[in-house]
């Protein structure tokens, strides 16, 4: 566990860069988190995905996989990879301040 300062606030992340406490996240942290993933600026389409990720996490206890994002977020899988080229589910989860989606068993 690592304590980070993001948007002048202390938050805890695990060693893969995922938030340990999603409630520590605020919207003004997202641009800085996105820049660390090489994404700048955050567009409306990015925000659609980030808000969907957080809603799913608080509703279901885990963030969605890429496939679920493609089916339910209103953004196609192809577009998701354009928005988050290094892997939509993981990268968007880091920027949205939620734990790593547990997609696969």
């Amino acid at each position: 566990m690592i304590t980070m300062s993001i948007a002048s606030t202390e938050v805890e992340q695990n060693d893969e860069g995922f938030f340990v406490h999603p409630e520590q996240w605020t919207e003004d942290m997202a641009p800085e988190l996105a820049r660390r993933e090489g994404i700048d600026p955050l567009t409306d389409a990015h925000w659609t995905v980030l808000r969907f990720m957080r809603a799913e996490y608080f509703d279901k206890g885990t963030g969605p996989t890429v496939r679920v994002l493609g089916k339910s977020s209103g953004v196609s899988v192809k577009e998701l990879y354009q928005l988050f080229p290094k892997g939509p589910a993981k990268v968007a989860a880091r920027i949205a301040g939620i734990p790593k989606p547990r997609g696969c068993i």
Partner: protein
Amino acid sequence: MTRRVVILGGGTGGTLVANRLRRKFDSHDLAITVVDQDDEHVYQPGLLFVPFGLAHSEDIVRPRHRQLHDDIEFVEAAIDRVEIDSNRVHLIGGAVLPYDVLVVATGATLLPEETEGLTGPGWMEKVFTFYSPEGAAALAPALSAFEGGSIVVNVVDMPIKCPVAPLEFCFLADWYFHERGIRDKVELTYVTPLDGAFTKPAASRALAGMLADKNIELVTEFNTGEVDGAGGRLVSYDEREIRFDLAVIVPLHGGAAYVGRSPGLGDDLGFVPTDDRTLQADAAANVFVIGDAANVPASKAGSVTHFEGETVVDNIVRHLAGEPLVGGFDGHANCFIETGFHKALLIDFNYDTEPLPGHYPTALGLPLLKESRLNHLGKLLFQSVYWHGLLPGRDIPGIGAAMPTAGKQPVAVREERA
């Protein structure tokens, strides 16, 4: 008063729950109906062997209704939808089955058409799957005619049934081309969306080592966006390409189609949200789920279904008696992994414990996480145990529902990477 259990699906889970319930209740107290869209029960672990000529499709299929005990009704019909609120199942064609308890046991469905190009040019000619009886049968002559070139084995995305099966396919292909004397002319590549060979760290390391030893290339974190059969290319969403002369694809999986037509029953992929300990559906107190249809965080595998059976039946009995449910299921999975050359590996794990080395079920049992001829024999013998022990709902000596720990050696494990 006679109460009615309707079981959707006459595969591994539906059959063993029906037979176990029939033993516990006589037919005056409980009417049991099993619904399936066809009367062909496939021993799915056998599909792996069909492409290599080691089994034939007809050897692994038996009539579903013949696996059910007397006084269990079998209805051959497709399901239109379930109405949770009125406790009724609507069949295609208009028939309606009311129930007191519903068991969802309709497994997972292959969705090859959801991947761009997969069912286009080249499908069943140079692009195959061994996950269906037709696909496995079509692959056999294609492999025997294969004289050299590149073969890719690709899992499109998780979850899939039997996550070890595509690895077993690679190991058997290595053995098969050795036997034919042309292994040096065949490039084998395993392409997975995961960040390692398998989902669990200790087993993933062991299996990655075996792939390397057998000269099978491992490509990880590849999310297949398109299968171009005509051009012989897999293309990932992040625009990487892998060329092939023959592709063996494990398509996307979803729940049965009727789940999506049943308000409140399923999730986005058609699997049924289910309590991972009691196996009661989130949708309603009188709905239980067994096997691949459930969204529980366990492997989609026959062994898991088998071990879930005890909890599902216990909890149906408790529900009918108005008693609280038991959280009996521990996520236990137990898988033989064929590694070729008449050997196999065995892994055994649950929700909390990853596959460990040692012996199963006790220190004198089969070796775990290690290749052996004994495990291969175990895998072959299991087919008989399946038809004669597991489906009839008998307790099988040495294969209990709860994961045994007696023969296991703890290992230092890095943080679990889900």
